[in-house]
């Protein structure tokens, strides 16, 4: 089932907006459900939205898991490039930092 991101938030502008999207995705993942998120109607997103909506998923999930279980559709190059670059960068940084101490 495709979820329209603009059904979750009125706009994709800042970290508060991103947190709502993140919580939706986390909830789905917790029920072992994949997510298909449509960005229809969204022209652009800033880094603060992407950080909150997607990068914070890496706090609890490996990047490969996110890639397998999150599809983003009806988006555009600006949004997709930013999500890819931010996620790749943060995943690589986490891998370099290693497991956190308990």
């Amino acid at each position, binding site marked *: 089932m495709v979820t329209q991101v603009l059904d979750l938030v009125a706009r994709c502008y*800042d970290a508060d907006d991103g947190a709502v999207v993140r919580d939706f995705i986390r909830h789905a993942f917790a029920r072992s459900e994949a997510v298909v998120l449509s960005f229809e109607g969204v022209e*652009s997103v800033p*880094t*603060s939205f992407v*950080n*909150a909506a997607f990068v914070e998923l890496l706090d609890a999930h490996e990047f490969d898991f996110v890639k397998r279980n999150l599809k983003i559709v009806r*988006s555009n190059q600006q949004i997709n490039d930013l999500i*890819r670059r931010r996620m790749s*960068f943060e995943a690589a940084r986490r891998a370099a930092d290693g497991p956190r101490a308990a």
Partner: protein
Amino acid sequence: MTASVRISLPHRLDEDGLHSVMAQAVDRDGTPRHQSCVVDFGRLRFIVPAGVTALANLLKWFQQRGVRFSFTAHEHYGEAIRYLDDSGFFAMFAGQPLQARARPRETTVPLKMVEHAESYLWLERDFIAWITEAVSLPRQAFVDVKTCLQELFHNIRDHSGQSVGCTYMQFYPQEKRIRIALADFGIGMARSVRKVLPQLADEQAIRKAFEEGFSTRSTARNRGAGLDLLVRNVVQLNGGRISIHANGGSVQCRSSGGRPDYILRREYAHYPGTLVALEFRTEALHFDPSSFEEDLEW
């Protein structure tokens, strides 16, 4: 009673000239030099968006600090004064335009203080309405420009200690350039970075802020990627230019052989807050409707 000190605007108020104004107005420790002053427009003959924004930002800073100011030698209404009047400068600081005929120019977005809470709608409506009309391209062609401004408004809220930015913009059709300036009178980018890296000089601190992943962790979610996005959108993809002036330094970034090249300068004056000047090449802005929408390929 002490006579007010005179702050003389230079012949040319651009990114170099603004430092002469700051040198007269601001101590090296970032405090106002005087408690009252007269801003002298007598020598001013030319001004650019960064100069308009820097001057307005300075006066807003004065107002916040309780510095009293007045204007002199602005009545001659030469071209630079008329340009400032049309920008909304005198309406903002003197309560009304110098002349009733003052009008925003079609190629400009009037000087405005934008609160972060209103920045989303201001960008979606006022900014997009102006730029699509001025440059005659559909709104999707300005996605990268709008994203840069979103990043800058977020940076002001997250790092400066303030919530409002002062902005002014102009389209130069002959040069095929858009010049955008956005400033705040907060703590300054260099000072913000030096909270975590105190050993850096101001210009080095500003340069550090461009590194993807560097963050002052000013907020829990701050991951330090906003300026990296600006470099990508403005310099690498567009071939434009970014300048940042903050505290005692400045950094300019432009393309050199397809890669971003940074020029760092230690300035002789202190800039109270942060000024960001962006220059976009309109020839590099385009929109292909057949390829605009796509799914994400990881």
